[in-house]
């Protein structure tokens, strides 16, 4: 059992409980335990694209510093990496990590602020998304071997969202033609439905005050998947999940007739396939209930 230092980020404890609980259960089954950092704080969600706003860099650097210290407290085999589940955390932390490794001036300024908290970051750590661990350390063949409930009948359209692949230095896969989610879905026994809108931005933070923007994006994403025969979507980001999930509910009321597509986190799919207790998925938090589809396909668990 290799233990990884794990940074949850705020949403994984609130809206996306299902994402976290299934991830932890699934990681244990694959001999890669996710151990939460005890004293983490919000990474800031989006990284500032300005060069001069040092205040906005304090939160993510503190996260990196605390992750680094946490790694030292784990055992020998723990790699020098902090693992995230949320795509936005992944992108933000990767960008900041790269920045402070190359720009010592910025690191000094931020460390100066952090001194009060006794944090100084030793920039020798990498940031990884859980999908990278699944692909590079565990391997899809291993995952396939552990499948007890192949997800037959599920036609999944992988939706990466923007932050898993942007910017170039934070990308976990090829920016224009990624394949990690496709391989994962196939290893779980489900069918992959390709859609050209796999990374068309869901609208992100515009959901707060300009939700009409999110509506049109969600419509495009879901329609493209549905047109190509998908019956569900898989995502890796709690904001994408919320946007696509919640707005479909609103749109269903405005434009009746088309059945909405349920949205799964990739760890929920893994949980279903690897035989993890159903309640860990927290499907009750979803706005579009995936249970009817799962029942129809005979995938509602029922084994435990």
């Amino acid at each position, binding site marked *: 059992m290799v233990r990884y230092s794990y940074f949850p980020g705020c949403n994984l404890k609130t809206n996306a409980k299902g994402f976290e609980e299934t991830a932890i259960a699934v990681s244990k089954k694959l001999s890669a335990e996710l151990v939460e950092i005890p004293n983490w704080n919000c990474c800031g969600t989006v990284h500032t694209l300005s060069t001069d706003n040092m205040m906005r860099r304090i939160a993510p650097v503190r996260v990196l510093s605390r992750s680094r210290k946490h790694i030292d407290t784990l055992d020998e085999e723990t790699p020098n990496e902090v693992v995230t589940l949320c795509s936005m955390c992944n992108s933000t932390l990767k960008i900041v990590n790269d920045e402070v490794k190359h720009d010592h001036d910025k690191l000094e300024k931020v460390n100066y602020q952090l001194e009060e908290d006794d944090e100084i970051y030793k920039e020798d750590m990498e940031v990884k998304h859980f999908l990278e661990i699944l692909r590079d350390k565990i391997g899809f063949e291993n995952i396939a071997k552990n499948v007890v409930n192949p997800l037959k009948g599920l036609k999944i359209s992988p939706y990466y969202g923007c932050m898993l692949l942007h910017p170039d230095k934070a990308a976990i896969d*090829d*920016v*224009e*033609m990624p394949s990690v989610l496709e391989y994962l879905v196939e290893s779980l026994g489900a069918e992959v439905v390709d859609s*050209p809108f796999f990374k068309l931005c869901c609208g992100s933070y515009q959901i707060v005050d300009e939700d009409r923007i999110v509506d049109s994006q969600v419509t495009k994403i879901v329609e493209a998947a549905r047109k190509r025969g998908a019956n569900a979507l898989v995502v890796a980001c709690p904001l994408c999940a919320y946007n696509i999930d919640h707005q479909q509910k609103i749109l269903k009321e405005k434009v009746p007739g088309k059945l909405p597509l349920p949205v799964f986190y990739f760890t929920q799919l893994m949980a279903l396939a690897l035989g993890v207790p159903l309640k860990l998925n927290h499907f009750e938090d979803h706005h579009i209930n995936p249970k009817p589809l799962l029942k129809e396909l005979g995938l509602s668990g029922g084994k435990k």
Partner: protein
Amino acid sequence: MKIGVYICECGSNIAGTVDVEEIAERAKEFPNVEVSRVYKYMCSDPGQELIKKDIEEKELDRVVVAACSPRMHEPTFRAVLEDKGLNPYVLEIVNIREQVSWVHEDMKEGTEKATSLLKGAVVRSSLMQPLERKKVGVNHKALVIGGGIAGIQAALDLADMGFKTTLVEKTSSIGGKMAQLDKTFPTLDCSQCILSPKMVDVSRHPNIELLALSEVIEVDGYVGNFKAKIKKSPRYVIEEKCTLCDDCVDVCPVITHDEYNQGFAPRKAIYISYPQAIPASYLIDPDACLGIDPLICAKCRDVCGPEAIDFDMQPEIIEEEYGSIIIATGYETYPIENIGEYGYGTIPDVISGLDFERLLSSGGPTGGKILRPSDGTIPKTVVFVHCAGSRDPSKHLPYCSKICCMYSTKHALMYKHLVHDGTAINFYIDIRTAGKDYEEFYQRAAEEDHVVYIRGKVSELFQDGDRILIKGVDTLSGETVELHADLVVLATGMIPSEGTKKMANLLNVSIGINGFIREAHPKLKPVDTAISGVFVAGTVTGPKDIPETVSNASGAASRAAGILAQDELEIEGTVAKVEESLCRGCGLCAEACPYNAIELKAVNRYGHTLQVAFVNEALCKGCGSCAAACLNGAINQLGYTDSQILALISALGEE
């Protein structure tokens, strides 16, 4: 020792800031100075006569001229010395124009500085020694590497001038990329029609030896005396016997992709790339054939009437000597497989510019009809994407390849000629029409053939049902636009070919940042390289269109002939010289030499084998890098020895 000092006024160019009379007076006091004169324009005939008269009457044995930069008139004054029987290398030129008068304003300061420089020069002059101009013999044969239009033109020019020329081509036929084109802009000449007469000329020319399926694998030697090894791969068909009857093709059981048709058409293992190929003979592809050794099928040999098939052919190594070499290894097109946002080459109806040429061509995979690769239907909307992978320092080629705007315009125009009710849309950033008649061609495409031009780079495109969805922008109207296309042609740029990289390595010519060979001077020496005797022609130095390539090739042939036309080559006397007894064989000089002129050789001294540096004077350009690198002072540059330079520096330091 009698030194003559001559100071030029250069009108007011020098005399304006330097008191020339004053320094001439002071010079008379310098050691060994016999005579010191001033003249208004030393480079003029009367000025030269002045020096000549003094050399004869006063029996001078050294001359110092204080004037403009030696880059201007060193040869002039050297000729003056030679004319009067003095060795041209005992001339010293002091630059009191660029280095004094042009950079100072104060007369007093200028004069002081000029005096100092003059003194240093006089002191050095007395240490200068006469030097020899050595001669090397010249082999009168030329080697042209690469059989595209550049290589063909260069070979024909050299052969017409009377020089025996070997033309080496890697593939089975000469013709290069031009043979794959349908029509050439702006005249819309059929490419094959204008190219094949030249190809046939090459095959018939008594002075040209054509080696196809051949590669140069080794080159040794230096200008006038290159020794090349050429590997000729077996064709398995005897060129002279093959009658191009095509009977073998019918019986061959192997089908593979046809490179000439960009993989869109099939060919057999025994084939000819295209009917007009030169050498006019079929060949067997040993990788596709079921087996040559051991022999498996041999059906082709069974039906070959003229008995031209010979499975026992072996590779040959041909060794030859040449006086000049021309590298004409051409280009490749940038692969669309590199461009992610346009599909990484996985979408069947998204093709490259060269692919489209083959579709246009009547000898091509569709017989000259424009058909979609996916389902063979006629596309009604074709989108041409300019700058695909070009002008893109972030992920692709940073430079502009010059020809793509023109060939995309040509493609759109030709498509409209063939599909009258079709729509051709060109997404561009800038339209570059810098050649002769190019702007008029662009005007014609828009006015007469109604090609639609939208200014905006396509961000991405993908398969949508059986059509392609394009996400673009019209920057001129300020709107983002989307449309469905039936066929997309990506206008890709030119990159250096594999052959270019190999030959550059072999011949030690330098490569620029984009992989193209670097010319000796980008403006004034477009067909020379830094290596004497090695010239370049065509797209090997950078993107060019056909007229440029042909002129370039003729230029290279002329430069190459400049060497071949001589029986002997004179080498400049100011070359590096090794004092063997001081050399410790460390090799730093050889590393420092940019011209590959120094070699370490094993030498037997006092019963021990030592490494000693040897200078190939034909390659040495007298740059002095080796002399600077040598820790022992064992290698010196003749004409600029350490003792001379140190004496000069000492003199400069004196009052």
